[in-house]
């Protein structure tokens, strides 16, 4: 086994390392020495003293907060005062209505099943997903390209970049979870790495050219851009494949 990486040593420090890494650490003197260095430097990073709050701190917070709170409305049961026969009549009407809706639904289903439901076929669903994903990858690619060539002239430039990154971050999270659930580790992995870049850009309070350079270097945006291009090409291929298949059946 090769020596442990810095990340693995950090994981071991925080007791989140794998058992294999732990075993290697015990057996390898070089890694043990490296681990001791990591341990020393992290042990030395302490917290600024947190000022103690007195036992009445909670009370003070509550006293300040209380006047600002509006009580929630009590969810009273309006029909509590009704007589039993009124409630029974209401229940009976609801039951009749339910039966009518059920039967109507059955009848409607029977007369409409003859027509093929194009929108609900798996192919159509997949096409919709591919179109949406391709659009997301297009936008992301444009953002990464801008990032690669960015020279922010003023605050408006960076605000624009950040607002786009924030938008993309929200949708990216959704696609990553979907890809992961659909068992596509390649796409999920790329979207995960992309999420890191988007989070960094979106959360940087003073996005500057130097900040962008740091994100580029730290997170290998060129590599991610390359991955996105491959994935985009792949989803475009799948989309055109589906179109061809659809053409063939028609």
């Amino acid at each position, binding site marked *: 086994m090769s020596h442990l990486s810095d990340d693995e040593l950090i994981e071991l420090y925080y007791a989140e390392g794998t058992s294999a890494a732990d075993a290697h650490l015990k057996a390898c003197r070089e890694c043990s020495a490296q681990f001791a260095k990591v341990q020393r430097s992290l042990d030395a990073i302490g917290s*600024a003293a947190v000022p103690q709050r007195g036992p009445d701190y909670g009370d003070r*917070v509550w006293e300040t907060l209380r006047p600002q709170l509006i009580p929630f409305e009590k969810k009273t049961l309006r029909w509590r005062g009704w007589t039993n026969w009124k409630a029974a009549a209401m229940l009976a009407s609801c039951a009749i209505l339910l039966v009518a809706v059920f039967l109507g639904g059955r009848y409607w289903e029977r007369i409409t099943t003859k027509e093929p439901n194009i929108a609900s076929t798996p192919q159509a669903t997949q096409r919709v997903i591919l179109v949406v994903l391709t659009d997301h990858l297009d936008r992301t690619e444009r953002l990464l390209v801008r990032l690669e060539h960015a020279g922010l002239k003023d605050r408006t430039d960076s605000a624009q970049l950040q607002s786009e990154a924030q938008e993309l971050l929200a949708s990216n999270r959704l696609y990553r979870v979907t890809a992961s659930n659909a068992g596509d580790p390649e796409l999920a992995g790329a979207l995960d790495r992309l999420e890191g870049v988007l989070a960094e850009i979106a959360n940087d309070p003073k996005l500057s050219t130097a900040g962008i350079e740091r994100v580029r270097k730290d997170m290998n945006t060129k590599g991610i851009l390359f991955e996105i291009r491959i994935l985009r090409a792949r989803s475009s291929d799948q989309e055109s494949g589906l179109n061809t298949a659809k053409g063939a059946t028609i």
Partner: protein
Amino acid sequence: MQGNDHSVVRAVLAGDKEAYGALVRAHSATVFQVAFRIVGNEADAEEIVQEAFLRGYQRLESYQGRSAFGTWIYRIAVNCALNRISQPGIEPEYRHGEESNPEEKTVQLAAQDADPERVLLSREISAAQNLAMQRLTPTEKSAFILRHLEERSTTEIAEVLNIAPNAAKQAVFRAVQKLRRELAPLRGNA
């Protein structure tokens, strides 16, 4: 406590505003601690405590009780603190352990009776550490504080910061590497 918190939440939602006071009293110290660690000053941390409990009350109907109320309000507080340090022009301030009341210290770099040279070096390290913390991005800083000082797991950090577990882990790695790099010359190791 968790079951008790849930019944208090139900009481608040049923119109008993005063019941919310019990939740505020039970969790304000924890919320203050994490807020202070992120923003680095007492006044801002106290404001964040107020803001978190106010937001918590306003969103109480969306609290579904899947996690403990303490975890839920903690997450709101971290997000408030993160928003605060993400605002342009707002720099977090960090007090040095040596400058505060000795009884309040949680971590000390030098012993009380250490020689003046050692105390001076310790102060220098502490100042460098604070500066290095300020150079981290808000996500890196929060992830590192939650991992290193609040001792939260990667999964908890991901949940609190609303990012993927791997992104949370990478943020911690980057923060540690940057801090080690910045502090290496002072400590005399790589």
